């Protein structure tokens, strides 16, 4: 009897385990959809703010507040919502740092609110949207779960992507050609002077390499901070990440360097470091984290580029084009894997002109159209692989409201917001936003730094979400079909 009972227990547990595993797989197949959402964009385009607002507004939606009208309309059925819950996925054994959503939200909702600081490292966060199936039959099989894995990272790193397919000689030639014209030329004067004193065939000298690297990096920082430029390589020179400074980073573009510099020369040392850099970022970042995304949001601060002048605008356009092509084609080995059909294609790409709250309502369509004109060459490259592309003008956090003001005797449309550090609303007239890539006559040569408005009042409990502009449109375009 004891043996029989033991056999029965053994049979029970074995069959049960097998059935549970099979049923778990069936449940995941029927009800679960996992989406890796890459929120990409150049530095200061607002990736961290976008992710924070997206998460908080989705959580508030899960609490029953209609913070994202287009998304809730998608979830509506027979006059009520199919949405059951939205929750953050608890951390497990991930090796990536966790996106500090709570910290960013707390800073934005504080009495003295602050925008997130420049992102310095990779971070990931996941959330699950749970809703009833639309079909009555499938409702019997459980609830639909859409898991969103979202990655945040320094925007500077993204521009290393076009670097991966270039040799040191090619990269040096292209970079130095760009440095030779304004406004880069002005900010890189000290570095260019330094280059005149060295040659690729000089004996390798670590002190010389370090000195050249420091000067080059300072010129990149000046181009970024003073001229508003984005196309600055290598990205780790501006944002080294958690590893900090390592000797393989100490290189710089060298004029006249051959494809194969002589052994023991300065050119060979810099070439070796450049190749090590490429291997390192490929292994640490691109192959590891960028390979598997399904849908893509590309954030572009069109307005900031427009007002930073012609050079900054053209620099941004070039950056977007190169990035789009690099992201489409993959890099090295992965492009061949795509050809073999082993890599899933991108399912949707959304270009978003951020900080649309700096533009009054009448001009927002122009902003969207300008973004489309700017991104068209890049978008075409995606359309060739049949990824749907959409364009949006949005503000993940809306810090202004529309209004009017009298300027030069005439009434103009403005936005009104509280400038960070001040305590009163100020109207901001953004000027004319062109609806297409502007001609040369448009540019005045004046640089205008966009005002930084204080975040709006945000309910610290988070239940009301965050005031935004068009975030629901972006989200609906990117994941609406899954809900």
């Amino acid at each position: 009897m004891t043996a029989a009972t033991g056999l029965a227990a053994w049979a029970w547990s074995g069959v049960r385990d097998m059935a549970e595993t099979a049923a778990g797989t069936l449940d995941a197949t029927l009800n679960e959809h996992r989406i890796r959402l890459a929120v990409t964009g150049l530095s200061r385009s607002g990736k961290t703010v976008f992710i924070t607002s997206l998460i908080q507004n989705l959580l508030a939606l899960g609490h029953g507040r209609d913070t994202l009208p287009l998304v809730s309309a998608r979830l509506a059925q027979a006059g009520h919502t199919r949405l059951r819950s939205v929750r953050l996925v608890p951390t497990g054994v991930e090796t990536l740092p966790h996106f500090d959503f709570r910290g960013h939200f707390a800073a934005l909702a504080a009495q003295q609110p602050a925008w997130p600081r420049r992102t310095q490292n990779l971070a990931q966060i996941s959330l699950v949207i749970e809703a009833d199936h639309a079909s009555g039959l499938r409702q019997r099989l459980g609830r639909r779960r859409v898991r969103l894995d979202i990655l945040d990272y320094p925007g500077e790193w993204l521009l290393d992507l076009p670097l991966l397919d270039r040799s040191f000689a090619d990269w040096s030639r292209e970079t130095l050609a760009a440095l030779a014209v304004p406004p880069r030329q002005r900010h890189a004067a000290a570095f260019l002077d330094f280059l005149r004193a060295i040659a690729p065939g000089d004996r390798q000298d670590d002190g010389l390499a370090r000195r050249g690297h420091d000067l080059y990096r300072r010129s990149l920082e000046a181009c970024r901070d003073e001229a508003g430029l984005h196309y600055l390589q290598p990205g780790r020179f501006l944002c080294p990440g958690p590893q900090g400074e390592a000797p393989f980073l100490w290189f710089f573009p060298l004029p006249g360097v051959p494809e194969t510099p002589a052994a023991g020369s300065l050119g060979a040392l810099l070439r070796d470091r450049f190749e090590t850099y490429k291997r390192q970022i490929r292994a640490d970042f691109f192959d590891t984290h960028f390979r598997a995304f399904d849908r893509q949001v590309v954030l572009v601060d069109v307005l900031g580029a427009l007002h930073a002048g012609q050079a900054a605008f053209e620099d941004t356009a070039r950056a977007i084009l190169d990035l789009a092509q690099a992201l489409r084609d993959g890099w090295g080995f992965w492009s061949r894997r795509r050809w073999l059909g082993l890599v899933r294609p991108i399912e949707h790409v959304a270009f978003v002109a951020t900080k649309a709250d700096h533009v009054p309502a009448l001009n927002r369509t122009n902003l969207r159209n300008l973004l489309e004109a700017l991104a068209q060459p890049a978008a075409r490259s995606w359309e060739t692989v049949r990824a749907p592309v959409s364009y949006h003008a949005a503000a993940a956090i809306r810090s202004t409201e529309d209004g009017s003001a009298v300027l030069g005797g005439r009434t103009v449309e403005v936005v009104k917001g509280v400038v960070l550090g001040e305590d009163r609303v100020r109207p901001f007239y953004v000027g004319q936003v062109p609806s297409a890539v502007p001609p040369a006559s448009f540019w005045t040569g004046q640089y205008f730094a966009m005002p930084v408005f204080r975040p709006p009042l945000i309910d610290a409990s988070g239940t009301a979400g965050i005031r935004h502009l068009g975030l629901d449109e972006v989200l609906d375009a990117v994941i609406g079909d899954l809900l």
Partner: protein
Amino acid sequence: MSEVASGRLQPPLLLQAEQDGPQAIGADWNPPALAAPPSRFGSAGYLGLGFGILLASWLLVSVVTAIAGAFAISPGLGAGATLLAALGAGLVAFAGLREWRSLRRLRQVEALRAALRDGADPEAARRLSLEWLGDLGRHVPEAAAAAAMLADAADPAEIRALLRGRLADRLRGATRAIGLRAASEAGALVAISPHPSWDGLIVALRGVRVIRQVAELHGLRPGPVVTMALFGRVARSAVETATVDLMSQAAADHVLNGLPVIKHLGAISGASTAAFRLYRLTQAAGQACSPLAE
């Protein structure tokens, strides 16, 4: 294109602050509530309510008439009838209050489950957890220790981890024990029941008791209304969250019932089915009653 061709009309300009303007933006942000699922209060509900009102008003009129009649006979009889009526009304009110408190407790458990799952408001999660632990402490001694640790928890995820670490196994074990006891009792009763038509009744009655026991274990106080509400939740839990488990158990049951060893252990197929059903009901009730479930 015309605005492009004409060039920029006016450069961007940050104007002077408005002296009488607001000091902050965003006070108007107040997203409306989502449309809630339709009320289940359909025709049957209106019918029940109507009959309830008719019955209550008939009772009220009858009682008032009876009291007035008693006073007409003699003041002493009237006073006695009034006292009895007041006692009856008081008991009804007391029962209603108990039901209301039970329902409130059920709502709190649901709110706690949502707070722990969504992780949006740490203070709400902590407050609701402490309230739940206070009720749970009547059956689960470990609840007091868990409550003491909650003060140091930083966020809802940590609170949930603490509660799970301290209580989940204990609750699961106790739920399982209830399920096994109910299964064996129901199996034995079905095995000796004189007619198969009694089997369903036995399982149903024992099922109600199982749900009440599991609810009490999880800190709820199930009166009739809450028990009915729990039946709905248990059904949803079985369909939505435990679909997989039920499917796997069904497969396991099928295979297990087919094993010769089990067949010859004396288990009668009807009895074993009743036992399995009650055991599964207990598991689903545990899912429905626990704020720690997903």
